[in-house]
């Protein structure tokens, strides 16, 4: 059938065109197929990147089309790197990144390990656990602002029930010491299921025969866990860390909805700060330099990490 179609298409091709195509080398034909994708990538990825780098050396403001654009060298970079507020947002981002990843990996792996065991209602529990990650971050942010409300919030009541403190005596999103943890808790609630699913895939990829062989060798469960389970799940775990790391480095919506970067600036992550520079202050050149610094940071860290991941996989 397919042979017939090809023959028909070949006959329908005008001789001149057919001749021209026949005259092309395999390499040229390959280029014809790849060219549209390359053009698209150049247009929507590479060109904006180069343009951003150029803008980062200027004082350009997108809301001042009539103002002359000046080349100001490294001044934007110097301002960003010597600004104490920038470093505070970096610290806030690092706090958020480290704690969300640590908690999500620990809880996600524990959940996956528990779910991996065969028990009644296993599928139902898996479905229930993954529900939070299916919600929109804006909805989750809104929903948790109510849970964190000191006077009517369920979260405060639960904490009050456990500790005996007055529920309205603390505000998770209004106090400097609590707000950074408030955003960590919500992100962990939302994205632990994602880490769990990746870990579950890793756990289910381990052949039973390996555990059977270990049983024959009288290896204890503890030893099996450390010498079989962990090493074989490690590449999956590292992948989950990479995904969550990249995602949380650019975290914006959830935190804006929850705290708006406050109180003060204690939860103002780099992406929120960047958005304010670019689309509220309209300092396009400055924001471009900021974006370049963040890009280099993420790209550099991710490259090192991917190399480590490949090394683990090779083992």
């Amino acid at each position, binding site marked *: 059938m397919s042979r017939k179609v090809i023959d028909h298409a070949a006959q329908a091709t005008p001789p001149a065109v057919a001749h021209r195509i026949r005259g092309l080398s395999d390499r040229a034909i390959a280029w014809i197929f790849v060219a549209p994708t390359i053009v698209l990538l150049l247009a929507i990825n590479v060109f904006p990147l180069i343009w951003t780098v150029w803008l980062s050396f200027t004082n350009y403001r997108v*809301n001042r089309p009539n103002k002359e654009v000046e080349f100001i060298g490294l001044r934007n970079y110097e301002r960003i790197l010597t600004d104490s507020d920038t470093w505070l947002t970096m610290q806030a981002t690092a706090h958020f990144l480290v704690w969300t990843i640590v908690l999500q990996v620990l809880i996600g792996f524990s959940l996956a390990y528990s779910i991996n065991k065969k028990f009644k209602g296993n599928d139902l529990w898996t479905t229930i656990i993954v529900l939070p990650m299916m919600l929109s971050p804006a909805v989750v942010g809104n929903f948790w602002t109510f849970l964190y409300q*000191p006077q009517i919030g369920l979260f405060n009541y639960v904490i009050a029930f456990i500790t005996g403190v007055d529920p309205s005596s603390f505000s998770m999103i*209004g*106090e400097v010491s609590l707000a950074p943890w408030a955003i960590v808790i919500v992100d962990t609630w939302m994205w632990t299921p994602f880490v769990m699913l990746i870990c579950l895939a890793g756990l289910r990829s381990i052949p039973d025969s390996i555990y059977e062989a270990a049983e024959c060798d009288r290896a204890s469960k503890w030893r099996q866990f450390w010498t079989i389970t962990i090493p074989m799940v490690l590449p999956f775990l590292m992948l989950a860390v990479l995904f969550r790391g990249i995602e949380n480095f650019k975290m914006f919506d959830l935190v804006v909805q929850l705290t708006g970067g406050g*109180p003060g600036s204690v939860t103002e992550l780099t992406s929120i700060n960047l958005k304010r520079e670019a689309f509220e202050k309209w*300092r396009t050149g400055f924001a471009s330099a900021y974006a370049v610094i963040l890009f280099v940071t993420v790209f550099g860290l991710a490259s090192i990490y991917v190399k480590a991941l490949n090394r683990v996989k090779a083992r």
Partner: protein
Amino acid sequence: MKSKLLRSAAAIAVMTSVGVGFSNAAQAEDLTLCWAAWDPANALVELSKDFEAQSGHTMNFEFVPWPNFADRMLNELNSGGKLCDLMIGDSQWIGGSAENGHYVKLNDFFDKEGITMDDFIPATVTGYSEWPKGTPNYWALPAFGDVVGWTYRKDWFERPEIQAEFKAEYGRNLGVPETLEELKDIATFFQGREIDGKKVYGAAIYTERGSEGITMGVTNALYNYGFKYENPDKPYDLEGFVNSEAAIKGLEFYKELYDCCTPPGSSDAYMSANIDAYKSGQVAMQMNFAFIWPGVEADPNTGGGKSGYFANPAGPGGQFAQLGGQGISVVAYSEKQDAALEYIKWFAQPKVQQDWWKAGGYSALSAVVEDPGFASSQPYAQTFLDSMAIVQDFWAEPSYASLLLPMQSRVHNYVVAGQGTAKEALDGLVKDWDEVFEDEGKK
């Protein structure tokens, strides 16, 4: 084949242009007016039906909630978008919108139609229409006069047992506060008090971090303690004015008010949060823009004489209140500017302005507010007049957003997060604003 195609194309072009010709002859346009999503906007929708009936144009509305209003609409203007033909933009946008060519200059139109700015409340003309300030260059018609004022639970204030307790504690009668210090005393008195079996709090004030909330609140304390945006004799000279001793005291006052007298969880409160706190019977007083007052009166829990209104009380440096409100402008990128100008002409009529006030909009037309019956027309009308007489506004420079963001951050850091001192916050603000004006080439 080619000539057939050409003939068909020409025929379609002729038919299209004839069609366009007919539609132009009818002169009926689909106009879009952009504003914030709030009660006055709904009133304007109703009011505009009269314009539709008179002109034959159709009005569409694009309303955006306040926290996203500036972001959404300034994006629209900066990108030269054609969504809005008419824009009721915030007062602080006027400088940027004039200098960057987003708004149509209205002087010639006003002259042609006999509309004069002398007919409007002077503060609203300066605040909403002029750029540069103090010059007769008009970019908007004052559309909605607004100002920060206070609402209080008159029914609670009038209870004999509460009055007696207050007098015993403070040695004076409980009533409308004359000064900010008195306001703090009253708020402290109500904080944590039980009324009708429910714990209540002193005052709901602006503390919002994300857009402009805390700035719109704190300025009501800063102005009244002696804060100045700049040296009156030397523009853009900030040192010693923004961070003067008096300004520092004003900022400290606002923090004390936040610490002593707000309900728990008030770290990010703006207009709607304060309305909710007040209407639910949680607070004795609320700071808010005047636009909410018709809603307070209409609510069965707070209306019908249960609420009273007062202008922002005086401080050691005088009595001022933060200006709100907006002017209506024609967007320069609109292709329907003639129809949009027709709308402004219709809106400027005294009869329409009178109806605007009745519908819940705050007219800025002097003839409306100076009418002998105006002050008694609503329980809040006199307070509105008193407040409009003492207004001050935030920077309306083209770089207003760059000036607003550091103020939000510095003030929130001190007042809500409790980091650093008032002096450090205002010194930091001077540094940030200096940097903005240096970038602008104004220093």
